[in-house]
């Protein structure tokens, strides 16, 4: 995986954080970053344009990051491949991490974060097997606990 080949969608309702994430991604070589300020528009966008990875804010008006992830898993991942999602959040409680994981997020990064932490999250997420298994489907279909 080369960072310069990645297409990344940043979904965050805070314009300053979107700009900062975009700058950090650019600084490590990513050249195609699209920003969207809400989950509904992002969901509509990825029906036509598939990024390689999504960075999604946990707390947003309307669709929050967890609900957005559930919708992607149920509405977008039809081909059997998971669209990689990293949840970005200012909260670090374990229950939130578990909620994001159960919704189908591939990873989770807590703000403020270092460039190295973000790069490593992306690198490892992209190097995983992203095939959607039956166990994934069952886990994500069950009610959140």
């Amino acid at each position: 995986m080369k960072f310069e080949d990645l297409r990344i969608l940043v979904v965050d309702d805070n314009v300053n954080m979107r700009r900062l994430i975009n700058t950090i991604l650019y600084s490590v070589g990513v050249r195609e970053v699209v920003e969207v300020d809400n989950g509904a528009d992002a969901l509509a966008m990825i029906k036509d344009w598939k990024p390689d990875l999504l960075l999604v804010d946990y707390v947003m008006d309307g669709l929050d990051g967890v609900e957005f992830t559930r919708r992607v898993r149920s509405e977008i991942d039809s081909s059997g491949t998971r669209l990689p999602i990293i949840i970005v959040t200012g909260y670090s409680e374990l229950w939130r991490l578990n909620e994001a994981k159960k919704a189908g997020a591939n990873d989770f990064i807590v703000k403020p974060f270092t460039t190295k932490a973000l790069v490593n999250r992306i690198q490892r997420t992209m190097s995983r097997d992203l095939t959607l298994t039956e166990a994934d489907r069952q886990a994500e279909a069950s009610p959140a606990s």
Partner: protein
Amino acid sequence: MEYLGVLMTTSIAAAEENAYDRPIAWTPELSVGVPEIDADHKVLIELISQINLAADLPEAYTIVGTVLAALSDYTEYHFIREERMQQVVGFPTAEAHHQCHQILGQQVQHYLALYTANPDAVDTQDLFRFLQRWLFEHILKEDMQYVPYCANNPKASEAVIAIGAEFFIDSDVGLF
């Protein structure tokens, strides 16, 4: 360049008083003739400008904290690229330049540690002014000294490009 001209010449104190409200941007006068290094400088300027943009916002903690962490990581990366380039082209005062980098690296680490421990301990206006002034002065004074050795020199670009994003990849970051 008018802003930089003011900042760098007669009235630093007066310029600093107003600098917080002014946008900062890369201009061609800052070019060192090596596109990859110019790109690094643009990233640093953009990161510093985001401290200014976020300083008074409710989410300032997460943004300023992330900018400081990014500056810490990115200055380390940029300095290594720049010093490798100087080594390859035989820049004679590379050691003095390295010392400048060391000092700023330590200062950024200091601010990052201070901010991480207690965000209220760091005045973001002072932080912005310090970083802005340091970067522009460093480019215009120290970096310009290597221009005769590096500008339009393919070996300089090759040396910089050889150190890429893999610099940021560690093996100890946990996942789900």
